[in-house]
């Protein structure tokens, strides 16, 4: 907290952008995002799209796990449900991408509510196991309901069109991704300062106490599951439309863990943290690939050590962040910001 930073009414206190500096830098950052596709090459744009999908998914998971405290080990399953819903709606029913995308979100939200129903009876550890089971059951359905999902061969998805514009390259798809990231993050940021967001936090902190002060657990827990899965569905639909193909291999258990790792590394219960985490955890495998290329160049045959490295690094990051920095990158960011704000005096 800065000295001389007084709030005179509640409206000011609840503002998202609290100072002119924040507004200025955010505007600058947004302009950068707008000119970004004109200066970046294909590979960087591909990564930017991937980061975008991860941000949407991670924000959704953080609303459920970070804000409402319901641990979900099945986020990849919801992403898969959204992905398959959008793929099936566009290819079988001939709906346009713009209609199938929100519908995919709705289908995924519906799946989320069904999985969320046990959360009214079981919680903590048991809920965690229930969502884990859901993950494996959905994986099984993706592979074995062949009349609907085409099994392991998967479904090819046409690129979305708007009038005569076809969104087929990384650069064109970037605009779609950017739009949904901005809308998704903006909505989440607003949600957490609304009545519903406060109810979520109350449920996380002590659900029985929350119920006693009049928060309807049934309604808000299921809302959290629905909203979180809606985000997951949108992320999944965008992701597979971008890749132009969907197979069951896209949604393994490790993806669920990766999303949990994102919000833990980024910061549980922080929208900004989910963004940091998503960017960080998406870029790490790429950095490892890059390193393995270098090693391949200088010491051929030794690069195989990088194959399991991704899992080890994910595991290490989870363990180290939980032990040493439980509030994640968002907290580090705050500390750095405060240091410069207060410099040269630390108070």
């Amino acid at each position, binding site marked *: 907290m800065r000295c001389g930073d007084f709030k005179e009414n509640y409206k000011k206190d609840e503002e998202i952008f609290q100072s002119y500096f924040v507004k200025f830098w955010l505007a600058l950052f947004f302009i950068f995002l707008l000119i970004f596709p004109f200066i970046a090459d294909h590979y960087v744009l591909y990564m930017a799209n991937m980061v975008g999908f991860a941000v949407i998914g991670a924000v959704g998971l953080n609303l459920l796990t970070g804000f409402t405290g319901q641990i979900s080990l099945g986020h990849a399953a919801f992403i898969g449900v959204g992905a398959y819903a959008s793929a099936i709606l566009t290819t079988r029913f001939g709906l346009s991408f713009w209609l199938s995308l929100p519908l995919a979100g709705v289908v995924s939200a519906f799946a989320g509510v069904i999985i969320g129903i*046990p959360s009214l009876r079981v919680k903590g550890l048991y809920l965690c196991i229930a969502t884990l089971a859901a993950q494996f059951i959905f994986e099984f359905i993706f592979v074995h309901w062949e009349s609907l999902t085409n099994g392991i061969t998967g479904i090819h998805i046409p690129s979305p069109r708007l009038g005569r514009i076809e969104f087929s390259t990384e650069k064109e798809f970037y605009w779609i991704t950017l739009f949904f990231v901005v809308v998704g993050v903006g909505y989440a940021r607003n949600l957490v300062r609304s009545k519903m967001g406060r109810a979520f936090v109350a449920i996380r902190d002590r659900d029985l106490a929350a119920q006693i002060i009049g928060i309807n657990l049934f309604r808000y827990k299921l809302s959290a599951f629905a909203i979180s899965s809606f985000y997951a569905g949108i992320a999944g639909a965008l992701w597979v439309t971008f890749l132009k193909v969907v197979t069951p291999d896209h949604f393994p258990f490790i993806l669920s863990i990766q999303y949990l790792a994102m919000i833990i590394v980024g910061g549980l219960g922080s929208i900004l943290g989910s963004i940091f985490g998503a960017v960080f955890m998406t870029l790490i495998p790429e950095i490892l690939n890059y390193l393995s290329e270098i090693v391949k160049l200088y010491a051929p045959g030794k690069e195989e050590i990088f194959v399991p490295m991704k899992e080890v690094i994910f595991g290490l990051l989870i363990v180290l962040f939980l032990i040493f920095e439980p509030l994640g990158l968002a907290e580090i960011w705050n500390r750095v910001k405060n240091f410069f704000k207060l410099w040269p005096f630390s108070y």
Partner: protein
Amino acid sequence: MDIFLQVIVTGLATGGVYGLIGLGFVLIYKATSVLNLAMGEFMTLGAFLCFTALTQLNAPFYLAFTLTLFLAFLLGFVIERLILRPLIGEPIISVIMITIGLGLILKGIMYMIWTPTFRSFPRIFPPKPLNLGFAVVPSGLLWGFIFAIIGVIIFLLIFKFSRTGVAMRATANDQQAALSMGISVKGVFALSWSFGAMASVIGGIVIGNMSGINVYMGDVGLAVLAVIILGGLDSIGGAIIGGFVVGILENLTGLYIDPLIGGGAKEVAPFFILVIILMIRPYGLFGKEIIERV
């Protein structure tokens, strides 16, 4: 009818092994309230250690087995001290996620050391199957079952009669009371991790001996969750009975449902069982029902 009996017997034998791995979960959960999702990796590690001792060091089986148990004991101890102890009193998501992270690390390291190639275990049990008249038990399953039962009995005896076992039960019952009676709760935590690791390592050796080992065999560990949820997370006897039930159900699904949908049902059956139990009776058959107060 014959094939039905055969499947029941196979299911019972598999269930014994499940029960043993489930015991590993329960031992840790009972004392420390931590569900160790890295159990599958403990198992794999045990199988690999025993395998290496048998093939590289040419040790006889009993020696390799003892060595593996000893290493598992150390592993459990070290992991509790380094990773779990800083998290005492943290929210449940941190504790669960840290065991998942631990599992990823162990898996990656095993991948680096032993590579993902599939290996079959050297023969350590006599290969003669046991003929019961109405059904035949393959040698691997039979010996697995025997090992599992012996392991379970030993752990039960330790819990019932030894001083350590009583201390562990006391800690599980009421940590503060145990602390005030002079029991070192931290020591008990470390010990239960060691015991849990040992139980899962035996399970790993038995399963590796039946169906060969590779880095991904630890995925069975997640299916065993159905076993302990059915039996109750904190009940040793429940883990054993849950093991039998899930083993039989799983093999029956393999027999009757697999042909209908073209395979794969056997692997996913435990998770369906899991969801059904959680809906009906979340604390399991013999688990302690939690009463919450604000």
